[in-house]
C-alpha cells in the first residue's frame, strides 16, 4: 500500500487536504457550470428534430452519468471501509449517497420533463428510465439504512454491505431491464442512440459533465468535512479547531 493510502486513513490529514483542495474545485465547478450552461442554452445549435427542448440534455446526461459514478464510488468506499476498517472510507460512503440520489432525481426529473415534448408522456417504461429509477431506489435504500441505524460504525458497515450487494446487481439490473424492454416492446421510444452529434453540440456537453464532476467533488468534500468533525469530535485536534474558530 502506498503511503498516501495510509495518510488517507487519517481523518485529520483528510480534513486538511480537502480544506486545501476545496476552493480550487469550487472555482472550477463554478466556471465550468456557468460557462457550460450559457454555452448550452444560448450558443449550442438546436436539434433539427427536437428543437430547443434538446437543450435539456446538458443537464440530463451529466446528472445521469454522475448518478452512476457516485454509486460506484460509494461501493468502492464501502469495500475499503469493510476490508481495511478505514474510517474515512465509511464517511465517504455516507457523504456520497445523498449527492448521488439527488443526481438521480435530477436525471429522472429532467428526463421526465424532456419526455413530455418529445414522447408526449411524462413517463414510459423504457429500459434506461427504469434502470435509473431502480438506481434511485438503491440510493434510497442505502440512505435509509444509514439513517435508521444509530450507531455510526454499525451504520457505515451495514450500508457498505448493501452498497456492495447493489454493485454486484447493477450490471444485472441494467442488462435485464434492457433485455426485458426490447422483448416486450418494439422500439417505439428509444433514447436517441449515441448520436453523431456535431462538435458544437457535444463540446458544451463535455464541459457540463466535467463541471458536474467538479461540483460533485465540492459537495462531497463539504459533507465529508462535516462528517469528520462529527466523528472526531472527541479528539484533540477537533477541539483545537473549534477553539480557533
Amino acid at each position, binding site marked *: 500500500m502506498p503511503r498516501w493510502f495510509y495518510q488517507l486513513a487519517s481523518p485529520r490529514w483528510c480534513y486538511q487536504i480537502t480544506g486545501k483542495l476545496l476552493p480550487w474545485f469550487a472555482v472550477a465547478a463554478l466556471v465550468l457550470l456557468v460557462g457550460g450552461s450559457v454555452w448550452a442554452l444560448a450558443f449550442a445549435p438546436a436539434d433539427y428534430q427536437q428543437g430547443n427542448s434538446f437543450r435539456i440534455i446538458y443537464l440530463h446526461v451529466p446528472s445521469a452519468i454522475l448518478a452512476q459514478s457516485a454509486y460506484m464510488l460509494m461501493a468502492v468506499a464501502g469495500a475499503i471501509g469493510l476490508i481495511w476498517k478505514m474510517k474515512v472510507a465509511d464517511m465517504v460512503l455516507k457523504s456520497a449517497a445523498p449527492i448521488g440520489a439527488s443526481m438521480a432525481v435530477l436525471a429522472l426529473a429532467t428526463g421526465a420533463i424532456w419526455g413530455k415534448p418529445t414522447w408526449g408522456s411524462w413517463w414510459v417504461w423504457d429500459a434506461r428510465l427504469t434502470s435509473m429509477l*431502480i438506481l434511485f431506489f438503491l440510493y*434510497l*435504500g442505502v440512505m*435509509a439504512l444509514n439513517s435508521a441505524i444509530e450507531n455510526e460504525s454499525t451504520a457505515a458497515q451495514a450500508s457498505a454491505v*448493501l452498497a*456492495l450487494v*447493489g454493485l454486484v446487481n447493477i450490471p444485472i439490473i441494467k442488462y*435485464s*431491464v434492457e433485455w426485458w424492454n426490447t422483448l416486450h416492446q418494439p422500439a417505439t421510444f428509444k433514447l436517441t442512440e449515441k448520436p453523431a452529434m456535431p462538435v458544437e453540440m457535444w463540446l458544451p456537453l463535455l464541459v457540463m459533465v466535467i463541471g458536474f464532476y467538479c461540483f460533485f467533488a465540492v459537495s462531497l468534500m463539504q459533507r465529508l468535512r462535516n462528517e469528520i468533525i462529527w466523528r472526531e469530535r472527541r479528539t484533540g485536534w477537533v477541539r483545537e479547531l473549534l477553539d480557533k474558530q
Partner: protein
Amino acid sequence: MAGLFMATCRREFLLSFRRKSDLVNPLIFFLMVATLFPLGVSPESGFLAQLAPGVVWVAALLATLLSMDALFRSDYEDGSLEQLLLSPQPLFVVALAKVIAHWMMTGLALTLMAPLLGVMLFLPAEGMPGLMLSLLLGTPTLSLIGAIGAALTVGLKKGGVLISLLVLPLYIPVLIFGSSAVQATVTGLPLGGYLALLGALLALALALAPLAISAALRISISS
C-alpha cells in the same frame, strides 16, 4: 457442520409447523392476490390470461418479500440470534440452513401452488411448465437476496420494514426473467435461455449471499 445444518433445518421446520402462520401466510397471500385480481380488475378470461404470468410472478415476489422480515426477527427478539453468533461453528452454515428451510416453506410451496393460481387466472395450459420451472429456479434467489436485507435490518428498533426498500431493486432481474420465461412458454418460444439466466442468478446468489448474510448479521448485532 452437516449436523448443525440439519439441526437448524429441523428447528426451522418445527417452528413453522408450530406457528403455522409463517407457513400458511405466504400461501394465503398468494391465493388472495389470485382471488382479488379477477374481482378488482376484470373477470374476463382473455384479459386475465394475458395478465396471468406477470400477476403470478408479482404475487410470488411480494409473498416472499413480505415473509422475509420474520426470518431473523424472532431470533433477534428472544436472544437466540446472540447465541447463534456466539457459536464456534461457521455462521454462514446456519444462515444458509435458515434460508433453505425458509425457501422450502415459502418458495417451494408457492411453486407447488402456482398451477392453481394459473388456473384461476386462466393461464393457458402450455404456460404451466414454464411457470413452475421459472418459480423453482427464481424463488430461491429471492429468498437468498431477501435474507441479506433481513439480516441488515434485524437490529433496527425503528424502520424494520426498510427491508422492502433495500431488497426490491435487487429483485427486479428475477422478476423480469421469470415472467418473461412464462410468457415465452405461453407464446411457444423457447425458454431455455431464461431458465439458464435464472439458474446463473441462483448460482451467484448461492455463492455470495450466505457470506453477505453472516457479515450483515454480525454487523447488525454489534452496535
